[in-house]
């Protein structure tokens, strides 16, 4: 060929290489995700976190607590079963992993809020943290607390803390939250679904006032929970401090204060059961005789909200089944009462803590001689009527005077406690694991033992740790198991010993 090729070729190669080199520098921009932010405000984190926490806690209630505490029993159960006190290690995995996942957000939100100097978000973080850890530790015992949710800081295998060290921390956090909450300030970045503390009404943030009540009510719940350990933690004086100063340490005083995530019923915050299949919702479980028969006796109006009716001899009735029945038993579909379909879309199912519970706490405190401002009976009756109004039913006339409901103030302290705890048990319907925790603490309500429960099976005192820990965090698990004295459901947690 007549022309010289070499320079042309060289030019092409140089241009190509230069092009490649210059573009590679832009790769960092190109590899920046346009869909997801690198930084967020507390407002976009809070709502989803509140929702995720509560859908797990009420699901724990439905899947675990209700079966264990004889609210419901499965229609058919060939092997094992929570109602036969067989607590497998995976029973509450969803709670463990679910809560810890959201606790990562809680921790992060606290850090972001600190940076932004948003004390209300900081306080809300602390309240959720305390609420979540208290449920986890009451269910499992010792667990990772001081080292958890710090993978980004390099802690991939967190050590476990003992419950006796966790509880004081929780109580301290709640006390801090109580002082951080500032009712003259709105939540700058919004996002609160629980109390809608996003805006001020006039110059006051009513939502923040309620957060404060929730914070102190939770303190009361937890102080009562560890009352056996008052030698290690000064439970009594803290309770007294709270009761003595309702301005500084307000607690729930009405059902409007209830810590209930009310599902708006619009995307995405639906009642988590709104599209549950019939077979999953009410064809697999029935209410037990223990639970439904008393409501039948009392003609408890909450029955209509909670349960379906079945036709027996031409009459529509509420009817339950045995709990802990023998393996050979199988109940026919749709022939006993189960969860009503109304609950699937009920907004106020997202319960965290209620005014009714606070009244029952006060009833017990009053019984123990604390200055609650009222008699145990008054608190007891307030608790019952608060629960009725919480579920949207009117307290029937004369209900509080009915035999079996009417408070016997002359009975022994233990009998009075038993009465309080039975009504508290009904008020704990769909409140995470609280009725189980309280049963462990007080022994009430007394549950009949099913004939199909093998002799060796004992009522559980805790939930075994998830199995995955054996592969992903074995050393710390082993230490914890040694400290706890075993990893089965018969081991008692610190406050229960």
């Amino acid at each position: 060929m007549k022309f010289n090729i070499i320079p042309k070729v060289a030019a092409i190669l140089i241009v190509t290489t230069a092009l490649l080199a210059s573009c590679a520098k832009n790769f960092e921009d190109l590899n920046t995700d346009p869909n997801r932010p690198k930084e967020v405000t507390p407002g976009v984190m809070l709502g989803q976190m509140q929702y995720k926490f509560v859908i797990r806690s009420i699901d724990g209630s439905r899947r675990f607590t209700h079966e264990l505490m004889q609210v419901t029993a499965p229609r058919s159960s060939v092997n094992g079963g929570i109602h036969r006190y067989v607590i497998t290690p995976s029973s509450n995995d969803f709670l463990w992993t679910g809560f810890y996942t959201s606790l990562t957000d809680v921790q992060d939100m606290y850090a972001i809020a600190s940076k932004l100097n948003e004390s209300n978000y900081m306080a809300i973080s602390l309240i959720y943290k305390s609420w979540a850890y208290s449920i986890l530790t009451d269910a499992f015992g010792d667990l990772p607390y001081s080292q958890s949710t710090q993978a980004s800081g390099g802690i991939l295998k967190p050590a476990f803390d003992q419950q006796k060290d966790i509880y004081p921390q929780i109580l301290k956090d709640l006390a801090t939250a109580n002082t951080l909450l500032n009712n003259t300030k709105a939540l700058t970045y919004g996002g609160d679904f629980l109390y809608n503390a996003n805006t001020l009404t006039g110059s006051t943030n009513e939502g923040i006032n309620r957060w404060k009540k929730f914070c102190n009510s939770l303190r009361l719940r937890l102080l009562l929970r560890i009352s056996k350990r008052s030698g290690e933690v000064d439970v009594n004086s803290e309770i007294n401090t709270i009761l003595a100063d309702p301005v500084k340490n307000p607690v729930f005083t009405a059902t409007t204060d209830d810590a209930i995530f009310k599902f708006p019923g619009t995307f995405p915050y639906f009642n988590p059961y709104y599209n549950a299949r019939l077979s999953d919702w009410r064809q697999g479980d029935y209410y037990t005789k223990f639970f439904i028969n008393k409501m039948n006796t009392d003609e408890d109006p909450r029955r209509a909200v909670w349960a379906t009716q079945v036709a027996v001899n031409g009459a529509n009735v509420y009817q339950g089944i045995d709990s802990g029945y023998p393996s050979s038993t199988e109940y026919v579909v749709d022939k006993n009462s189960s969860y009503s379909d109304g609950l699937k879309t009920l907004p106020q199912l997202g319960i965290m803590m209620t005014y009714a519970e606070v009244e029952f706490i006060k009833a017990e405190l009053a019984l123990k001689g604390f200055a609650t401002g009222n008699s145990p009976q008054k608190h007891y009756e307030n608790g019952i009527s608060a629960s009725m109004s919480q579920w949207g039913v009117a307290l029937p006339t004369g209900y509080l005077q009915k035999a079996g409901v009417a408070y016997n103030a002359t009975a022994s302290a233990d009998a009075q406690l038993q009465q309080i705890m039975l009504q508290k048990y009904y008020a704990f319907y769909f409140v995470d694991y609280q009725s189980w925790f309280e049963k462990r603490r007080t022994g009430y309500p007394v549950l009949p033992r099913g004939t199909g429960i093998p002799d060796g099976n004992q009522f559980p005192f805790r939930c075994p740790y998830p199995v995955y820990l054996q592969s992903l965090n074995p050393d710390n698990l082993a230490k914890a198991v040694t400290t706890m004295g075993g990893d089965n459901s018969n081991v008692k947690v610190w406050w229960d010993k």
Partner: protein
Amino acid sequence: MVIVLLTVHTLTATAAQVLDQNLHMQASQYTGQQIIEIIKKQANAQVSYDESVNGRLGRTVVVRKKNATVKEVLGWLKADAGVTYNNQSNYLVLTTVQVGNAQDSKITGKVTDETGQPLPGVTVRITELNRATISSADGSFSISAAPGNYTVDASYVSFETQHLPSIKVKAGENTVLNIGMKGATKSLNEVLVTALGIKREEKSLGYSAQNIGSKSIEDAKTNNWVSSLAGKVAGLNIVSTGSGPVSSSRITLRGESSLNLDNNQALIVIDGIPVSNRITGTGYKAHLAADSPVDFGSDVSDINPDDIEKVTVLKGPAATALYGSRAAGGALIITTKSGQRNDKGLGITYNGNLSFDGVMKWPDYQFEYGEGRTDKYYSYGDSPDGVNTAAAAAQGRAFGPKFNGQMYYQYNPNSPDGKPTERTPWVAHKDYISKFFNTGITRTNNISIEGGNENGSGRLSVTHLKNDWLVANTGFERLSVALSANQKISDKLKISGKANYTNKRSDNLPLSGYNNQTIMYFMILGTTPNVDIDWFKPYWQPGQVNIQQRLPFNPGPDNVYLQTYEMLNKINKNGVIGNVMANYTFNPKLELMLRSGVDLSNEFRSQQRPYSMTKYPKGSYREQNVFNFESNTDLLLSYKDKVSDKIKFSVSGGGNLMKQTYNFAGIYADQLAQPGIYQISNSLDQAVADPNKSEKAIHSIYAFGQLSYHDYAYLDVTGRNDWSSTLPYGNNSFFYPSVSTSFILSDIFTLPKAVSFAKVRFSWAQVGNDTRPYQTAKYYDRIYSNSFTNPTTLFNANLKPEITSSFETGLDMRFFQSRLGIDLALYTNNSRNQILAIPLDPISGYSSALLNAGLINSRGIELQLTGKPFNNPQFKWNTIVNFSSNRSYVRELAQGITNQVIYNHDTNVSIEARVGGRMGDMYGRGFQRTPDGQIIYASTGVPAELDPTLKVFGNAFPDWKAGLQNEFTIKNFRVSFLIDGQKGGSVFSQTSHKLNTLGKTKVTLPGRDGGIVGDGVVIQPDGSYKPNTVNVPASKYYDEYYKITNAEMNIYDASFIKLREARIDFSLPAKMITKLHLKQVMLGVYGRNLLIITNFPAFDPEAANLNNGTITPGVEITQFPTERTFGLNLTLKL
């Protein structure tokens, strides 16, 4: 212009040389026509000519002398009428003398096969001039050439290319060249398209590559062309999702080398341009999610098989190293058809296809017992016979009474509420499932026009496909337009372009998977053998149209006709795949190629759900716009030269710029304000936007060289460096080399005569693989539309590319003039530095962390035998056997990690990589057993709680696969069939699990009358075992025995043998079609999936499931039936 050949028949010339025959002429002049008549009569010659000649035969030819030879007379004809001739075995073919090419002479002749039959369609090329033509229906051809010495090549699919060197063309004289083609089981020097579109002679390749011709793809057409590759390529594994008309496929070559199953799929390249095999999912996982997946297909499944000329399968990294990071799992290189140059004008081909689909295989349904949990009696609702045993009480179980014609209160299809008023006979509806499925019909019409001249050629093809699928109101329509053009702009510059446009539309594609709103879920749970499927047809409650569906039986699954006619999933997709290319030849040694291509598609989808469906009580409406774009620009400079006659070399260098853009915009109205109105504006709540955008780029430079010695030893070296945007700045540049060699032993040594060809090859290669975009920094995850949460995977700012290195060796031998051939390949691959999301203790804040770790070793063997047992003119038999076996072992995972879950079907079964185990091992729970293997029962008579330890109960990938192709040619008939199968491989069958627990299959018949005493032992308090003696009802027994968590019972051997394809073709004889003024008429009858032999209990052992956009093998989640197809095919060439 249409070519019409006018053949004139005369007596056969008996004399040896017709040209030497003497002619006697009386007149002083004749017309050309008269001259021909004289030649025919007096010389007994056969003469043929075409229309153009005919136009000149009116001209006057002057008689120079009264007695002359035929040759002399033909010389006058040329001089006076401009008609010349060539003599092919005393057969005179007349052609016109080209004006302007007057000085050119011609090479003319006829192409025949071994039996002497004319062979149309053969490409005859003068290599020096790069001038080519195609032989016509009678096998004749003609190419003009200036005087000189030439090499002529004749090539045709499935024939050996003929090289005819030293063909002399003299001035003013036509050279007659008759070419005899030899059929080849595999031609020795077949040209393959390798990476980057580089064409190479097969014998020079140092790695395994295999060609699949268009015939193989068109022979037994399917909706997704990919499935027509099954059984034809050693080492290729295809599983299908069984998810509807499109039925997406997962294509892998040589097993699984990456722990990320998506990375193991083969790269698909069309005309040098990679095509996206991304499946944009809608719905979520296949098992009980909020919404179920719809299989909308991918850009790959939308490729039109009518436009595919051939597919070259490049199996290992050595073959694909030049494609870099994306082809670590091998590549399928598709070449689409381009215009064949045809001097005689246009080639028009029509191809029509009509096929009918039925169901290949049904599960073994029982029709002896009807609905219920008890066999005591049956009652639809409470009745004098007792309480309700049907509908909600039975929940789809068929453990009811036996069909003995007895009378029960049953569903009354004539009353609005279905309540019975009287007893009716208890009988089975044996078609209670099959009646729901229709005969699917697919109509395909394709017309293509092609043509060209010395400077260029073009092809235009239009194809329309309309599919009505097995399920009423489902199917799709596809219009494909393909354009291919190439033009020589100057002696040095050639440009070409290809564009494939596709429009795919569907008014409804069915939901797949296991969920209340899926058809196959309904077929398992929604109905029982005593039910007529027609009873579901009125799917609205009377007076509540669009508000409340009718569920006369099991209330769980949505009414199947509501699903079919109201839960619609629509798509309208427009896609273009195309490229433009310029080749500049500086001189015969130096060439520059520039090519730019795009794969672009935009699709609009919608999903509508009516009020009262189980999952969305207030219905829903969703829309998505999906935009997918990828561009690739390559620059390649090639230089070839020789050091001596023995040593030749070529070197090439170039670069590639790749850019991907993906833009998904979804908008959801998950509760409707007004029932029956499917508009986003009808959202009860604020509609929710779901955007997802991503971009990725890879820039590369590459170079490669080839050295050949004596044309019997070859050495190839390649190198490529990629810069990927998905990896961190410091680690985003990675280089991978390959070396391959090939030695033609039969040319180097003198081998026994029986060996006609022998070659050994060795190759080594290394390929890197990058990752998905946006993995190297912390981002908050969007959740619930406008909230954010911490990610669950801890990012890694120091990710490195995955590296796969492979070594391959092979042997290719042919015997007895290539009547028998054997091709053997052995390989071993190591994949390391895999980008893994290793599990973390979620307490740490993250449930997984990304890192580079792991080592997977894959080893395998591939064998292909070809044979031509009969090769007579009357009867030919070609046969191909292929066999492949692969094992992928997990050698290492991340430090401290012993297992990695690759996929799980909730907690029922998981595919896990465990150190020391095989890729694809399926873990699950099974029975508790005694040391001697007996099943341990509980005291209640059912098997005890499952053993909590996870064990391997199968492997998702087969031990080996094999295929047998046979083709018989008997005169004008061609008969072919393909049998293929696999040994081993396991599938967890959700279909079978649920059918069994509900008593729908024959395996649940034993023990119906009188119960079952399970075969096993019971643990005694002292630890000893005693045989189980407790009798339990069959319903309870099977419910427990086959429960979903029992992987041991629900994982099945997926071995199978299929009669995959069979076809009979009839081609009209050449004589007949000439009269019809056609070039080719072929009528074919074919079948697909005609027979299957397997122990797999559900519809198809070649199963996988679609989870959003990922296809997962090893687990079948209520697959649709696989189609058995019968089709008719007509090809007309004008």
